[in-house]
Each structure stands twice: as C-alpha cells, then as structure tokens.
C-alpha cells in the first residue's frame, strides 16, 4: 500500500519536475518577447533599472486618463479636449525645511511629438486656446523633515475647437521635488524642475497604447500625406499574397514536370536547381540588381517603365518562384503512385489535363505548407527588398519600415517606445498565422527537410 502511494507520489513529482523545466525554458524563449512587449508600453523602455512596473498598466493611471478626458469633454476611452472643456489637475511637491514651496508654473506646450515634419501639418495648437485658471494650494502637511504641498489648477479650452493632444509642462523652483500628480508625468526634465506630460486629455486607450498610436500617427509621407505604417503593412500583405499565388502555381507546375515527365534537358535543369539552392543570395544579387535596374535587358521599357528598381514589378518578377519551393513539390509528386496518371494517359488525356485535373487536386497538403512557408518568408524578407526598394517610403514592405523606425527613433534619440511597438505590430500577423496553422509550419519544415 505504502509502495503504491510512494510510486504515485514519485510520478507526480516527476511530472512536476518536467513542467518546472518546461516553464524555465519558456522563460528563455518567451521571456524576452514578454519583457519587450511590456516595455513597448512604457514612456522610456530603456530606463534603468528595467522594471516590469509600467505606469501605463497602473489602474490609478487608467482611471485618471479616463477621467481627465471625460472632464475635458472628450470620450473617456479615446480622449480629446472638446470645446469649452475644463480639466482639473493636481500635483504634489515636497520641499525641505527652510524652502518656501512655490506653486508650479503651468504651461500648455506648443509642441508636437514626432518631429518637425508632423508639426508642419498641425493647424491649431491647444496651447493657443487653452487658459490655465486658478492655480491654488489644496493641501499642506509636514512630511519627512519638510512639507508636502498639493496644488490644483484648471485647464480651460476657450475655443470651439476640438484638440486631440494637450501637452502640458509644470515648472517649479530648483530643489522643489515632484512627488505625485493626478496622472504620472511622461518625463521629468531640468533636474527635476520640469514635469512634462505628452497629453493630459489622452483618454484610456491612447494613454495605454501611446507608443502604438505614435507609430501610426507620426510616420507619414510628407510628399503624399499618407500614413506610412498602415501602408507598409498593406504592402507586405500585397507582396506576400502575390508571391504565395505565383509560388503555388509555378512551383507545382515545375515540380510536377521535374518529378514525372521525361524530356530533354531535365538532368541539367535539376542540377542547376540543386546548385542554385547552395549558392548564397548575396552572390547573385549583384547581377540581379543590375538586371532590374536596366528593366530586364530593357524589356520593361516596352511598358514605359525605364527601371524595375523601386517597383513591385521588380520584386515580383525576380521572385516568381523559388528553387526550394519547386524542390518541395517535386518531392511530393515523386511519391505519388504511377497508376494515378497512367489510366488517364490511356484515355488520351493531355499533360495539361493530367496535371490540372488529377495531380494538382492531390497536392493540397504540400500546397498548404508552401503557402505558410512562403507567406512567412516574404513577410520576413529583408535583404532583397533592401536592395531593390529605396524610395519612396510609401513602397516599403514592413521589414524596411521597421528599419526606418529604428533609424528615425533609435539613431537620434534612443526613443525605443515606437520601435518596440512597431516591432510587435509587425510580428502579429505571423504569430496569429502560426497559432492557427501550427501543424502546417511543422509540416513545411519536414517537407523541406525530406531530402531523399
């Protein structure tokens, strides 16, 4: 009896040990993603020490963001500072013994996040129509050898206009320390003298997802006025869809021919195919780049296109079908029994009929895997688009867009918030695809792995 019990207990601890280890590995593989995701919500994802306490995830700030926008006459969820809205705000400071606490100087700032390019489009600034009223002392109490003083004030929209953002700065004399405010400030400047908010009427969602909103709002093309990030997503989808389509059709055609038909030159073509799978892309890109630059020996000029650089045509034509996709299809067709085809042949069916009517319908499993693999491949492709597409930015696929984000925000100021946010948005479609079509990913890998 005791032995049974021991055995069971042992099995349980065994299982627990396995799960413990599995969880540990999950931290290794998922941890960086989770940490990066939480940080993508922060004002400053590179703060030191890094912490998982994100201001944007504090319920008190949620309530404050909601209420402030509501007071301002906007929607509590989406924010805004409506006509004649009023926002009441409080801030608390600590002063050491002997220093007279002073009320903060409140300024609604005339600034736009995202640089000069965006500022050129702003017609009205909240700063020009907002009045700061009634800065007064609300409360005062002794605290840790000094005084805690709370001030309150009201921002009033004196116009009939609606503002999306109301940036605000509070400035106090040197050595007067900021303790807390209705909403946690986005940053503290001037050695603690200035507390700065990006938007006091942001509302709940724009407050929590501020960096995500910035990615969409701040990246726009000056020449066309279009929002870039949405375009990049669309471009990537378009390119992926086209490539999936051409790959499915052409790879199965070529795979079938190479697997099941006899014709002159077959050996040479298959040899070249295998050879091409070994040669790194960086070898052939030199010529391919020039071929596209000259519009495939000038052929594209017939269609009035002098060069295929910076065109999707170039990307699509150069990537109609990849050698490895053909290889996968060939492997599949080779494994089908010969009898399938023979009976149709005897009935006098042409090659085309055999292929489209009999063989292709059988190829659903590898085509499914190929779809996923190709989609993932195009979505993540970096090197070739980097070479072919340089401008305008409207034409970038998402991977190049991310590089642009890194150059805009990362190179100049290490403003990692929008970079991480953009990263997660761009990873999302593939992650969803992966979760939904998990088995295809696995199959795809084993398909490409099935070398005879």
């Amino acid at each position, binding site marked *: 009896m005791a032995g049974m019990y021991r055995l069971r207990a042992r099995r349980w601890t065994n299982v627990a040990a396995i799960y413990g280890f599995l969880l540990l590995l999950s931290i290794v593989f998922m941890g960086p993603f989770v940490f990066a995701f939480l940080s993508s919500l922060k004002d400053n994802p590179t703060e030191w020490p890094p912490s998982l306490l994100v201001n944007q995830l504090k319920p008190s700030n949620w309530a404050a963001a909601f209420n402030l926008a509501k007071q301002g006459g906007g929607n509590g969820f989406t924010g805004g500072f409506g006509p004649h809205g009023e926002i009441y705000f409080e801030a608390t400071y600590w002063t050491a013994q002997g220093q007279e606490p002073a009320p903060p100087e409140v300024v609604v700032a005339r*600034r*736009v996040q995202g640089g000069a390019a965006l500022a050129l489009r702003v017609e009205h600034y909240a700063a020009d129509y907002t009045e700061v009223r009634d800065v007064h002392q609300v409360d005062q109490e002794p605290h840790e050898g000094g005084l805690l003083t709370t001030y309150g004030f009201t921002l009033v929209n004196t116009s009939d206009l609606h503002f999306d953002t109301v940036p605000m700065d509070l400035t106090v004399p040197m050595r007067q320390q900021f303790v807390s405010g209705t909403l946690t400030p986005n940053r503290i400047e001037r050695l603690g003298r200035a507390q700065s908010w990006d938007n006091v009427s942001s509302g709940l969602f724009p407050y929590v997802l501020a960096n995500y909103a910035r990615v969409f709002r701040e990246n726009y093309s*000056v*020449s066309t006025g279009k929002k870039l990030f949405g375009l990049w997503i669309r471009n990537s989808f378009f390119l992926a869809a086209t490539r999936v389509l051409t790959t499915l059709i052409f790879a199965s055609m070529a795979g079938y021919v190479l697997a099941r038909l006899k014709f002159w030159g077959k050996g040479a073509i298959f040899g070249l195919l295998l050879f091409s799978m070994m040669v790194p892309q960086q070898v052939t890109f030199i010529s391919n780049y020039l071929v596209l630059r000259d519009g495939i020996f000038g052929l594209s000029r017939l269609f009035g296109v002098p060069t295929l650089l910076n065109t999707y045509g170039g990307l699509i034509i150069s990537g109609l079908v990849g050698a490895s996709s053909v290889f996968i299809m060939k492997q599949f067709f080779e494994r089908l029994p010969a009898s399938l085809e023979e009976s149709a042949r005897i009935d006098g069916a042409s090659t085309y009929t055999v292929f489209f009517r009999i063989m292709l319908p059988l190829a659903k499993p590898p085509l499914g895997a190929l779809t996923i693999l190709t989609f993932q491949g195009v979505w993540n492709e970096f090197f070739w688009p980097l070479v072919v597409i*340089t*401008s305008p*930015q409207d034409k970038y696929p998402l991977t190049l867009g991310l590089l642009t984000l890194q150059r805009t925000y990362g190179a*100049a*100021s*290490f403003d990692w918030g929008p970079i991480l946010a953009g990263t997660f948005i761009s990873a999302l479609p593939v992650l969803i695809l992966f979760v939904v079509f998990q088995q295809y990913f696995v199959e795809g890998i084993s398909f490409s792995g099935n070398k005879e």
Partner: protein
Amino acid sequence: MKRIGLVLVMMLLAVSAASAQQVRIGGHGGTDTVILEEMIELFIRPALEGTGITVQYEPIADDFQRYIVNALSAGTAPDLFYLDSFWAGSVMRSGTVEPLNAYLEKSTVLRGEDIVRSLLDAFTIDGQIYGIPKDFNTLAVFYNKDLFDYAGVEYPSNDDNWDTFYEKLAAVAAIDPDIYGLALPPEYARFGALAHAAGFTPFDENGATDLFDPAFVDAFRWYTEMGLEGVGVMPADISQGWGGGALASEQVAAALEGAWILGSLRDEAPNMQYGATLLPKHPQTGQRGNIIYTVAWGMNANSPHKDAAFRVLELLTSEEVQQWILERGLAIPSRVALADNPYFTQDNVEAQSNYTVFLGASDGNVLPFSFGVYGGDWMQPIDQALSAVLSKQVGWEEALREAQTRLDAVMQR
C-alpha cells in the same frame, strides 16, 4: 461637374508639359519635400511663367547617395540633384556631373564670386565647378544653461580656449557621477573640428594622411582624456545616439553640433534653457577650427535640356530664395551678400544659434567635410580609434598606430 473640369485642365496641362521642357529636381525626402514644394510654388513657377519650362520635385526618402549613383549610372537621374560634399568626390569624378564653369560665365545673376569661397571649393576639382552650394552648416558649442547654473560656473563663451573650456566642463561634471561636461561622439565628424584648430589637415601636400602629426595627437589626446577623466562621455554610454540626444537627456552640459540640433531640441527637450557659442580656441595656435557641411545643386551631364536646368538652378540659389529659407530658420545661406542679415540680430535663441553657426564658417582653420575619393572610408579608422580609447580598450598610441595601418590600407585600394 467642377471636378471633371479640373481633371480636364490637369490632363491638358500634363499634355502640354510633356511637350515643354520639364526639369526634374532630385533631393531628400522628409521636411525637404515640404520646403522645396513650397519654394517652387512661391518663387520658381512664377519666375518661369511663359518660358515653357516646368519643374518637378522628386523626393528620395532614404539613402540619397545610393539613389543618385544608380540613377546616374543607369541614365535615369533627374536634371538637377543634391550633391553632398561628403560623398560628392567620387560622383564628380565619374563624368556624369556637368561642369558649370561655362554656364556661370554666361550668367548674369549667378557667378562663382557670389558664393562663399570655402563652400564652392568643396565642389571644385581642378578648377572645374561641379555644384553650386545651396546652404551649409558648421559646428558650435550648444550648452545647457541649467547645468552650468547648478554648478555655479560661467557659461562657455567665445573667449574660451581649450583649457578654460575644460575647467568649466569639469566643474559641471563634478555635480554628480551621472552628469558629464561634454558629449564626445567617437567621430571625426565632430572631433575633426578640434584637430583643425590644432593645425591638422586631413591630407598633406602629397595627399597622404599622418595621424602622428603632433597637431592631430594633441587634439586626439585632449578629446579622449576628457572621456577618460569622466569630464566627457560617449553618447552611446548614456544610451544616446548622438550629441544632440545626449544634450536633450540633460546628462551632458554641452555638445558640439550644428544647427540641425535645433529641431530635435524643440522636439525632445522643449523646456531646456540652452545657448550656443563658438568652439573654443586652441591654447597654442590661438585658432578655432571647424568643419563645413554643405550640400550643392549638381547638374546631370546627360540632361536633355541643360540650359533650362541651369535657369532653374539660378532661381534655386537666388538671393530671395535663400533669404526666405533663412527666415524660416531652416538653413544658412551660401551667398556672400546675405552675411549682414537682419535675421541674425533677432533676439531668440534659435536665430542666435544660427548666427553662431554662420560665424563658424569663417573663423580659424575651417575645412569642408569631404575626403576626396575615399569618402567615409577615410574617417572610419579614426572613428574606431576614438571609440576604442574612449571605451578604455587601448591606449592612444596603440589605437593611432592601428588606425594608421588601416587608413593606409584604405588609401592604397
């Protein structure tokens, strides 16, 4: 109905434009697009009325140099385009950029003498002028007033030399271990100005570079020791990408940057109280040094209508256009005649900063940011030496020896 009419008019215009001479202009994307389009609307189109010349701006968002090299080699380049002194060297030698001397001689409104000499030199090879500078930038000391106030030190001024400047910065750096005096990017693009002040020139009369030139060593050691003593810091070490970011983060009291810093300070440190002053003088030579960054308009040698293109070029670099750009605080004019400008006497920090940058071009040992055919490859070994010494990986002598070897390899290629 109205809309259809508009479309018809536009189509007609398109047809007539095709028959007329269309001058294509290639430049940077971003804010340049807005500026150029507004400028074309306000100044260029009205002036070209009735000449049959039309103008089209083609912005290139990223990697302009790569675009123009390709476009010139493939024959699809625009008629007029930006030429940055930094990479112009090899492009001007490729034979695809039109020399402008003949046009300048004929012109009544644009002559070589109208443009600041040192700027024009950056685009002249063997007497041939390949580009007309449109604007320029130089380096100045941008400093955070709060930090100097906090430390109780006087602001940097035009009277400072390296020693007094260093003392002031050291006093600010003493406030707190997390606060530094000067941002020290490991880049020749900043450090070079100091080397110039000490009397260094990138190429001697034989075209060779000697990094053990006493002037270079002097500047190199001053710059790197500041970092080793904790008076200065590399921006990357405080999680910033460049001097402007470091200044905006309030962890450094000063940075050596050009007028391009103004826009980013506006965005990233809107509450900062800052000022600008000329770079400090070298204590022995008594000279300042500086680097000029300039962009010119170049003309495509294969352009189908070069005369029309030059006509547009004249307008793009005219006095009224440059005055307009200056007044918007966007760039500093390249025309000699615009030096005494009421804009520069305005009492706001941005105008004053622009003026300081303007003065920097003609004070002391000033050289263009351009390294012949070697381009950026020339700076790289020096940048790496600066980085290695500033991050305490090697001593200055070893670093310079390594840099010299690498530099020699680059120049032999």
